[in-house]
């Protein structure tokens, strides 16, 4: 049977997960992770890194984590690269990230 986004949200709500609205997380507390997604990044596995983080956030119902893409980060040999922005802290750049390392990074951030 075909499912709509509303169906998926209803399933999640019934599992006591909340519907995500733009204003339900204080924007000033949001962690922002940017993944280099130029061709160099994609070839090196950036899509898997990106989705490993999305899946971990989903599994552990972590709130206030934005994950977005950007183009080539200018250091193709070190891709996949990710940039982590935590409010009130200096941003950090991680090089040669794997899906496993990305999950470790998210775990640390969520603590």
């Amino acid at each position, binding site marked *: 049977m075909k499912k709509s986004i509303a169906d998926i949200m209803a399933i999640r709500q019934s599992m006591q997960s909340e519907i*995500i609205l733009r204003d339900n997380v204080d924007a000033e507390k949001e962690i922002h992770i940017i993944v280099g997604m130029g061709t160099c990044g994609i070839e090196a596995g950036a899509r898997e890194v990106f989705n490993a983080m999305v899946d971990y956030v989903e599994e552990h119902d972590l709130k206030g984590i934005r994950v977005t893409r950007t183009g080539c980060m200018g250091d193709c040999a070190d891709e996949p690269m990710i940039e982590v922005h935590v409010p009130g802290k200096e941003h950090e750049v991680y090089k040669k990230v794997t899906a496993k390392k990305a999950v470790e990074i998210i775990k640390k951030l969520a603590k």
Partner: protein
Amino acid sequence: MDLSFALLELASNSLDAGATLVKIRLRVGRRAYLKVSDNGRGMDGETLKKACEEGFSGKGSSGIGLYQTAKCASQSGGSLKIRSKIGKGTSAILKAGQFETGDMAASLAVILDDESDIVFKARIGCKSVKLDTRRKRDETGGISLSDARTKAIVKQYVNENLK
């Protein structure tokens, strides 16, 4: 060739071109048809001519993405055709003979962003799915498309309907 990676390459170019709307149409049967059109800044004739050349980039990147996508399409018995107009946008039509659909949901999760809307219509065999983030945002009062949890919902939605 893997269509989901081709989608990621083409849609990434749309986003890098400042598109606020990216429309994706995918039809998969014995052959595959993938169209990605955007309202980004577009290319002039000279840039368009060189767009698929190895090492050429209009945005200071490696110049490999479109070259490789076009080459894979051609090797698969298909083609990549791009039309563009400065100030209007670009549309790329990829046809493939031999292909894998790949992980479409994973590619969509990457391109969902608060800066732009995505319209994704796919028919794979007898399964179909449609996602229009413009509509969802109106309905939900501004759903954040870059929140990891939103991306997870969209992945689940696409996978549920295409499996």
